[in-house]
């Protein structure tokens, strides 16, 4: 018992050998408590035993009343024909009321059992055993079994799969069904964060007959979740009602109405002010003052690893010259962009796309702005009289993108770089986002820095928009993704961050906070850094 220090796996057995080592690191002060809890949760260590080991008492579940209330939620109502192919997180927030996942990642980025009650990785992290919760039933009465899981996973990784899951689970070679409630996943390289990836918004469990019944989920909305879909009109509204016979605790709300009010957030705020809705999906930095003043609104803030990246393509002139890229990076004033374009609501970025609050972040020596050096490098590269560059952007998340680019324009002018801004409508921008030589792209939150790096800068990734191609970097990614030990992983990450910064792949000015507003009546609504909201514990207090 001594060597496991009281840690047990979710299945009641001995924990993965790396888990007690993590605990010793925590006790030596090498890693933080949250790092420990997160890494232990990947390994399938029971949350209660991990919490007890660090001296926390497990949180009591919120005691919420079962009500007759309907909550009205402002959210884009988008098509969700095939949930595994969804490209919008908004759509996933609708089907999350009906469809559930094997694992849940909570707002603190800790993995919790969901449809899977336990998981256990092999010592080399290449074979993972999962056990499903017993007694889960689909809304049509069928039992939820490993057959359903196998159907979903085989679909994601099939060679003709159009789902982004195929890239996300590139290491997954297959699923082996070992019993009605047990299965095993085989990987070709170690991946320590596998459970976390199973909560990606494209990974809901669909019924095994999904394709046989027409592959159109809203037409045939079978799910294991606490609500059922009762109305669905794209661009207008969708309704979900509490369902009898749910396997877990019954949800507090009787009904959730999602109302599509278009893209203008000031309209959403007006609806909240007039009491026509209860929860807004998001407000932008431009509406903050208004929301602060409104008695009918409560502001919710959430730190998240979302950012804008102004990346340069390495195979395009003049960005094929490291000195030019470096000059852009040196002339940029990241702190000023944060202060002026995002009003200081965030954290300054360090031009390597890993956030200081992500668990695998490694601190590098501070990056200093140096306009004289930028001028010098430009002259060396043959642009003594300055150079003309063009930055393409699409304001896909709001006006702050353009504001940021305008600050950059001023910054670069000091170094003799004349930056032209090419502002496109958002939909136009999405057809050139990975083609334009110098572009500003919004990247959503990822729990781990390594996940964003793997998607955006691996030479073979289909989302590699900077055409960055560095074998040393790719190899470093493989290493970092297989390391469970946060200290070792952080060291590996330092190397990756340094490569990105030294190669001047991008100007990544800041990490932007998220905001939303709800009616003061709304209780227990929690922001989530990935915007994966769960509505089953929300309720409305009396006015």
């Amino acid at each position, binding site marked *: 018992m001594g060597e496991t220090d009281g840690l047990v796996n979710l299945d009641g057995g001995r924990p993965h050998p790396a888990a007690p080592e993590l605990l010793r690191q925590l006790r030596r002060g090498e890693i933080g408590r949250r790092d420990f809890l997160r890494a232990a949760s990947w390994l399938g260590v029971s949350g209660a035993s991990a919490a007890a080991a660090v001296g926390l008492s497990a949180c009591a579940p919120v005691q919420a009343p079962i009500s007759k209330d309907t909550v009205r939620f402002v959210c884009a109502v988008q*098509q969700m024909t095939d949930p595994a192919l969804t490209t919008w997180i908004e759509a996933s927030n609708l089907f999350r009321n009906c469809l559930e996942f094997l694992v849940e990642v909570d707002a603190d980025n800790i993995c919790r059992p969901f449809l899977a009650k336990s998981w256990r990785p092999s010592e080399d992290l290449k074979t993972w055993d999962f056990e499903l919760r017993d007694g889960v039933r689909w809304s049509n009465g069928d039992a939820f079994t490993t057959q359903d899981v196998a159907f979903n996973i085989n679909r994601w990784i099939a060679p003709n799969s159009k789902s982004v899951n195929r890239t996300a689970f590139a290491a997954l070679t297959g699923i082996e069904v070992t019993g009605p409630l047990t299965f095993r996943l085989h990987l070709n390289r170690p991946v320590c964060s596998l459970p976390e990836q199973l909560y990606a918004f494209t990974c809901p469990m669909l019924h095994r007959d999904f394709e046989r019944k027409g592959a159109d989920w809203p037409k045939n909305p079978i799910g294991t979740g606490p609500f059922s879909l009762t109305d669905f009109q*794209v*661009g207008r509204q969708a309704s979900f009602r509490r369902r009898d016979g749910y396997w877990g605790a019954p949800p507090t709300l009787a009904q959730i109405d999602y109302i599509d009010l278009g893209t203008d957030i000031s309209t959403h705020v007006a609806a909240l*002010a*007039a009491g026509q809705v209860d929860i807004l999906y998001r407000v932008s930095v431009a509406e903050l003052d208004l929301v602060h003043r409104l008695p009918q609104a409560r502001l919710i803030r959430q730190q998240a690893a979302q950012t804008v990246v102004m990346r340069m393509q390495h195979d395009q002139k003049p960005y094929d010259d490291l000195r030019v890229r470096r000059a852009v990076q040196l002339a940029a004033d990241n702190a000023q962009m944060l202060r002026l374009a995002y009003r200081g609501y965030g954290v300054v970025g360090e031009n390597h796309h890993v956030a200081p609050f992500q668990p695998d972040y490694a601190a590098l020596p501070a990056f200093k702005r140096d306009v004289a050096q930028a001028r010098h490098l430009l002259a060396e590269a043959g642009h003594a009289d300055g150079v003309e560059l063009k930055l393409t952007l699409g304001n896909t998340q709001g006006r702050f993108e353009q504001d940021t680019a305008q600050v950059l324009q001023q910054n670069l002018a000091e170094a003799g770089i004349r930056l032209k801004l090419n502002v496109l*409508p958002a939909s136009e921008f*999405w057809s050139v986002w990975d083609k334009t030589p110098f572009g500003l792209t919004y990247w959503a939150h990822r729990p781990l820095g390594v996940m964003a790096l793997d998607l955006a800068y691996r030479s073979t990734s289909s989302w590699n928009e900077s055409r960055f191609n560095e074998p040393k970097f790719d190899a470093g990614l493989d290493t970092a993704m297989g390391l469970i030990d946060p200290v070792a992983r952080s060291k590996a990450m330092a190397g990756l961050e340094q490569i990105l910064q030294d190669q001047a792949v991008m100007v990544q000015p800041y990490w932007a906070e998220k905001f939303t507003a709800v009616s003061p009546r709304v209780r227990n609504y929690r922001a989530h850094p990935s915007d994966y909201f769960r509505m089953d514990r929300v309720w409305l207090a009396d006015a």
Partner: protein
Amino acid sequence: MRETLTDLARRAGGLALTMLVVSFLVFLTLELNVEGVAVKVLGQFSTPDQRHAWLSENGYLDPFAIRYLRWLADFVRGHWGTSTYYHEDILKLILPRLGASAILAGGALLVMIPMSLILGVAAGAKEGSALDRSISLVSIVTTSIPEFATAVFLSAVFVIGLGWLPGVSTMAAGLSLRELILPVSVLALASTGYIARMTRASMAEVMAQPYIRMARLKGASPARIILGHALRNALITPVTVIMLQIPWILSGVMVVEVFFAYRGFGTLLYQASLNADVYLVEACAMVSVLAVVVSQTIADLIYVRLDPRLAPGGGRHS
């Protein structure tokens, strides 16, 4: 009679030709770049292989002229395709939205026409009076503020400040007059001033005519002069202006609908363009052009009726 028929035929021909030219331009802008169409239909994260397969499956590798003619033939027969964003038949999607927008535009006209005519006649009946000056001032101010600014202003006052009116007009529980107040006011405010000014100018001009002076000399009461002698002639210009305002109202409807989240034709077109829903944008563009061209043709016809001098061949009789 024969002249009227040939005139009608000529107008219909012109209408058809306009539509044809516009349809070609719409198709050219949206579908010349086939790669772009594939990205819009399959999404920005689709791979080049998927796009190529989709393009060849859907006949996009054919020459441009053939694709245009095929699209035109489908369009004329009412086969407008399926919206990629709404996943619905486009014709079925557009009709109720047009109805909703007609309610909004109709409501605006219903407020705007009587108000602007009354104000204009009142101001023009006595040019230079205090009443004339104050009406003109208010008209100029309201006309010069665009809809999006009026919408923000009214909603700041009546929704956020006073809390009297709903902030969005989704008509979720059926037609609600309360939800119509703000959008209709915004639309009416933008055009009332302009038409009032036009009516005023026309009225002032008529009031200066010799026959009005004659009536006054004969001792007719002011009410009799205005209603009996001046009004009919003074209305020719405003009625035409009102018809010419219809395209303006249509564009205003779009701004107002989006601002108040009103589910009409304007929001549909806006959503379609935001989501790069190519087929829906094409259909909406054609429908808007049709609405404008038809309303302008009607305006011409009304104008001719009010002023016989403009009728075809009318010059010979004068």
